[in-house]
């Protein structure tokens, strides 16, 4: 293994290598000693503490009976991970910032964690959210700044979430990093009976953004809702690997991606719904809509369903291409000129996801950033 490079985002079930989607390589060399400390605000009752990595919880997903063509991504980590074993190993050791949401806790005020890169600082952060039985909480994790000292910054974040019985977590992840920043962002989730995990991500910044997400819907009636909005312009790269493992009966998952690619941006999305034996009555649905604005973009989409249970309902769909001509015509017929109509439709697509972030100022900032990016030099 090259110590300066990680193999990440490995597709749970491999396909033809020449397509270049089975995994991604991320350069991790040159991580600065100067680390940005996260700023955290939390409503009363939430417990924030440090934990030794050795005490980290283990939620090991059982192996599947059928393994042909599969990588060992699920069985060689102690906790679900989308970026995978090499990233987990790299992030191992040290301390974990643990956010504990007590049993029965309920608040609309989110826990807000901001990783702000200033003065050339990098970030290497492990977070653990323990959401106890019946708790209901909101979290915003936002990365911003970077590349201010004239050199590329890096941010590596590994987040783990344990949702106990009947627990709910609404998690908003926002990437507002500056150009020339590299982001490796992983989240692994274990859901118990009746748990509900809602995740939305606004991925706008960084020159290279790698996102991994793995959810183990282990409990009966576990619910997972994932929404991601991304806008990539200039030479930005976005590489994602989402994996939902249904092993609890009647578990439900929804994955929705709405994306816009412009300039010479490139994006790969791997999305896997994985129905394991015993997940009877489960339902999984995955959709991606990608709008391509320029002719030099590269879009790769790999929507996968793996199924070893009869009594399930699984669907996936993707729609890729230009702006819908009918929608454009509708706007123009209402007196909006073509350029403004295009702008409106593209921006509307992204804002339909980001408007659900529980912070008005942040929503405005995201909206402004989208507006600026769509009319900026990267276009």
């Amino acid at each position, binding site marked *: 293994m090259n110590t300066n490079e990680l193999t990440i985002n490995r597709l749970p079930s491999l396909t033809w290598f020449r397509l270049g989607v089975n995994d991604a390589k991320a350069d991790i060399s040159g991580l600065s000693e100067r680390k940005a400390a996260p700023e955290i605000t939390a409503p009363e009752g939430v417990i924030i503490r440090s934990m030794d990595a050795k005490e980290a919880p283990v939620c090991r997903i059982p192996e599947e009976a059928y393994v042909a063509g599969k990588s060992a991504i699920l069985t060689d980590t102690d906790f679900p991970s989308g970026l995978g074993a090499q990233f987990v190993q790299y992030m191992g050791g040290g301390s974990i910032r643990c956010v504990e949401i007590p049993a029965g806790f309920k608040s609309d005020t989110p826990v807000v964690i901001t990783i702000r890169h200033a003065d050339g600082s990098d970030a290497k952060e492990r977070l653990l959210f323990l959401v106890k039985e019946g708790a209901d909480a909101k979290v915003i994790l936002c990365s911003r700044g970077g590349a201010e000292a004239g050199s590329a910054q890096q941010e590596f974040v590994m987040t783990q979430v344990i949702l106990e019985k009947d627990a709910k977590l609404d998690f908003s992840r926002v990437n507002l990093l500056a150009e020339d920043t590299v982001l490796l962002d992983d989240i692994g989730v274990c859901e118990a009976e009746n748990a509900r995990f809602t995740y939305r991500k606004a991925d706008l910044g960084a020159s290279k953004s790698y996102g991994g997400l793995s959810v183990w819907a282990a409990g009966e009636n576990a619910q997972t809702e994932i929404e991601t909005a991304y806008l990539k312009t200039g030479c930005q790269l976005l590489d994602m690997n989402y994996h939902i493992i249904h092993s609890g009966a009647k578990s439900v998952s929804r994955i929705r991606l709405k994306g816009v690619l412009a300039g010479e941006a490139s994006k790969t999305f791997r999305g896997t719904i994985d129905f394991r034996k015993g997940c009877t009555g489960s339902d999984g649905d995955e959709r991606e809509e990608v709008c391509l604005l*320029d002719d030099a973009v590269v879009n790769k989409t790999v929507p996968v369903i793996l199924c070893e249970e009869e009594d399930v*309902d699984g669907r*996936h769909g993707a729609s890729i291409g230009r702006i819908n001509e009918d929608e454009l015509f509708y706007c123009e017929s209402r007196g909006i000129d073509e350029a403004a109509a295009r702008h409106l439709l593209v921006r509307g697509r992204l804002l339909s996801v980001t408007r659900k972030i529980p912070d008005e100022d942040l929503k405005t900032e995201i909206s402004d950033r989208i507006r600026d990016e769509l009319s900026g030099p990267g276009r």
Partner: protein
Amino acid sequence: MTDQGIQSYLEEMEGNIYDFRDEEKDSYRVDEGLTEEIVCRISEEKHDPDWMREFRLKSLEIFRKIPVPAWGPSIDGLDIDNIVTYVRPGTDMKASWEDVPEEIRTTFDKLGIPKAEHEYLAGVGAQYDSELVYHNVKDFVAKQGVVYTDMESALTGEYADMVHEHFMKLVPPTDHKFAALHGAVWSGGSFVYVPKGVKVDIPLQSYFRLNAKGAGQFEHTLIIVDEGADLHFIEGCSAPKWNVANLHAGCVELFVRKGARLRYSTIENWSKNMYNLNTKRALVEEGARMEWVSGSFGSHVSYLYPTTILRGAHSDCEYTGITFAGKGQNLDTGCRMVHLGESSSSLVTTKSLSKDGGINTFRSAVEVRNSAKNARSSVDCSSLMLDSISRSDTIPEMDIRTKDCDIGHEAKIGRISDETVFYLMSRGIPEEEARAMIVAGFADPVSKELPLEYAAEMNNLIRLEMEGSIG
């Protein structure tokens, strides 16, 4: 079908109508395994021109360098050192069924090939193990200038230059390990040339039968449909079941010239000890249309992904496929569409059924290159799980490199709905029959694309597979 009819069909199917063996009376076979000496011997036996002999040896070199695929079903049970790569039956090629040795003729009689030729085909090629034993094309088709002959004759005859120009140009031996294997030991197969503007109204058919135990079949099919021409080609294949691995690594190369149309239908019913590692590829020129109809029912393991390169502007491809995986089968099938030409379009519709522990994987790629402005593609794949000991995966990929395109993909997986079964039962239909009807309805978009005789066979197969599926 009457009860008696079903019973008789069941009896046939229990042994599998394709699962009968002839005594092995080949006149020549090479040793097991793959060596330079064996490749040279095959080349010698087949009186190859020099370039082909060199091509075979080069392919062998490539075969040794390329690893076994790491992404698909396991092929650990296949050991090339145990495979006999060339078995010549005890006859040369005949143009009349009467001249074919009785035992071999009986085999093809049982498979219904001579009857089919008489009733609805314009020409037939029949391959037994490594060589064609029968080839014939009806006079009225030959008079139109249509060439339908075995590959060996084409290699050295009037069309030698055309074969040299096209042979393994679409599927180079470097493509993958089993393309290289094919390049080294290929034998048999058909060459078809349809001249400009000629429309062949009724289909041509090649049938491949592999009888020899532990053998491989490596036929090569090369079809050139010239400008404005039209052809429907049917390929069928079967083998008896042995307790050792058999291998099929054929290669199909299709050239569809400007404004032409080619429909290529395949009914694959290899025995359940077969490793079917077949490669098919079509190059489609301006305004031309390629249609694939594919039914995969047999084999122990399949890797099968017909590829279409839509090179010309306004070129078009439609792929319709069904795969039925039962006990002991791991069928990895799908397709690949490469859009290069402006306004090219592709439409993919597939159905897969998994039962009795069978494993199905739908694997596809839609690649839209920057030159393919205004390309359109739509992929729709549906999978039906008939029990919870089976498995069904879908692994599609889309690689899009122009903004001026419309690409859609839809897939779904599920089981037979209880509500639908209940509805049919409430109308007086027994549960088993109701389930069979639902499965037949699921397969209908594909079966209606098949030639009538094959569609009837497929529906019977589904009915039989569904027998005893309750409880």
